[in-house]
């Protein structure tokens, strides 16, 4: 029995952008406002899961051919790597630095290595979340 999901899919196409934008926003705003890598990652992950729910594994996989385990692994590497980086500068492990950069359009921005760390966190969260849900869904 075929069930058509036209309404859902149409709405999701629009909504997904709100979600992903929100995720990115939360990720970046974390340092000064609620949010951060973890929540950002979760929201992005939820967005992806929403796609999987609305469509199906194969369709989404064609569009996004990632191995999400590796995405998660990359995230861990990024997080630990940013942490271990400080060793080479003779600073204690996990030391973070921050500077103010002036970008052409965005103006002065506060950049910290925490962002790299948080990016690692976010990637891991996305990767893990999707891995878990996909693994279970693929199970016979």
């Amino acid at each position, binding site marked *: 029995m075929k069930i058509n999901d036209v309404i859902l899919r149409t709405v999701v196409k629009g909504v997904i952008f709100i979600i992903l934008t929100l995720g990115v926003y939360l990720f970046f705003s974390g340092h000064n406002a609620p949010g951060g890598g973890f929540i950002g990652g979760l929201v992005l992950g939820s967005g992806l899961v929403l796609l999987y729910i609305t469509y199906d594994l194969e369709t989404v996989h064609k569009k996004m051919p990632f191995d999400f*385990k*590796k995405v998660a*692994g990359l995230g*861990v*590497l990024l997080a*630990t*790597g940013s*942490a*271990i980086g400080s*060793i080479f500068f*003779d*600073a*204690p*492990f*996990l*030391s*973070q630095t921050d500077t103010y950069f002036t970008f052409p359009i965005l103006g002065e921005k506060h950049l910290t290595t925490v962002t790299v760390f948080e990016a690692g966190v976010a990637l891991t969260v996305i990767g893990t979340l999707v891995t878990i849900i996909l693994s279970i869904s693929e199970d016979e």
Partner: protein
Amino acid sequence: MNNLLVLPLIIPIITAVVLVFLKDHIVLQRIISFITMLFVTVLSFILLNIVQTEGILRLDFSGWLPPFGILFVADSFAMILVLTASVVTTICLLYAFSTIGNRHEKMFFYPFVLFLIAGVNGSFLTGDIFNLFVCFEVMLLASYVLIALGGEKRQLRESLKYVLINVVASWMFLVALAFLYGTVKTLNMAHIAVRVAEAGQDPLLTTVSILFLIVFSLKAGLLLFFWLPGSYSVPPTVVQALFAALLTKVGIYALIRTFTLMFPLQQDVTHTIIGIMAGVTIIAGCMGALSGRDIYTIATYNVIIGVGFILIGLAVGTETAMTGAIYYLIHDMLAKALLFLLVGMMFYITGESVVKKMSGLIKNYPIFGWIFFIVMLALAGIPPLSGFVGKVLIGQGAIEAGSYILLALGFASSIIVLYSLLRIFLASFFGETTISLEDSKPIPKGAYWSFILFTISIVFVGMGAESLAVYVKDAAETLMNPSIYIDAILKG
């Protein structure tokens, strides 16, 4: 630079993640994981020596001074355990190479082992109580996966129990942490010690410490060991060996830390309870070992007896006893790992786990049999093998402190240990050989190597106890004088 301190934790983690990307390159995985563990072992040995010369090391992560940030602290006690754990893991890897099989290897077996050891090392090194929780979880999650990996009926069933019990234990840990934070308002272990001392460890703080006692007892298998026999007998042999060698020891480590560093002031309450629990654990362990009809049961109950014995050292609480406990910890980690590897190998070559259904193995596997004999003697504390020095020192401490009941229980238990293992040896290794040499399954080379390396280390720990004495004495001194630790953290 003290940054070296984090390496025993971070290197296994990074390697593990890298290995995830090398999913199908099994040989590469083996080589990399082995080199990593070798490196960690060497590194922890170097660190141990640095601690010797320079005193307690600490690494304040991100440079935040204690008590605000998280930090790693390396005193001799922690480093000894890190070193032993790394040695055990390295040797166990050798065993794994030849026995674990492709299916496991492709399913991230090595990454999980590395995560496990990372969590274990982290638990030994951390100086922050909440971080201890997190390190515990790293270790536990890895152990959950390792125990369930394979997906057999029995395995899944027991792992479910194991996981559920540990989830509840983790919950209790969090409750204890909440209460601890609610009272002393700090998380750094040295700082907690200072504040507890300031408050004179009043009744509420003692209650909180007892809560920690329960939590760590669950992990260590002290009195609350019900989960242990079932769950230690289902996973693949290497995993069993790693669990037996590492997991309960982390709980023991935490217990010792808690009651020597953070809550040492109400010993008549806390140490009495620990003593009673240790005594009951030994009795129950002995009964289990006596009742066992199959090799796994006997081996797992031996783990429990070992836990009780080490904690007698803590309950007694003198410096001699503590020295003994540390020696015994080292011994127990090595010998229990070897015991489980041997027991697993017996199962592998005979397909049986019931003692009486095997016979005469020594004919076809002489080295194997004699190594079992040696580990049996070591576990029974027969000199000059590894268990002896620890046993003697714990006994001395118990006499100094006048804890004669614990003394009697502890020493009687070694007879039961001997008896139970002797039963295996006599029934399974001695006796008529039923299988001819040609028909018998060969033991893989890697397994032999791991047996031999473990045996060498057991003999070394016993005969060469003197070479460890500097470290162990230093560790015990630090444990008995928490101010050394506290000063190293908070002053400087």
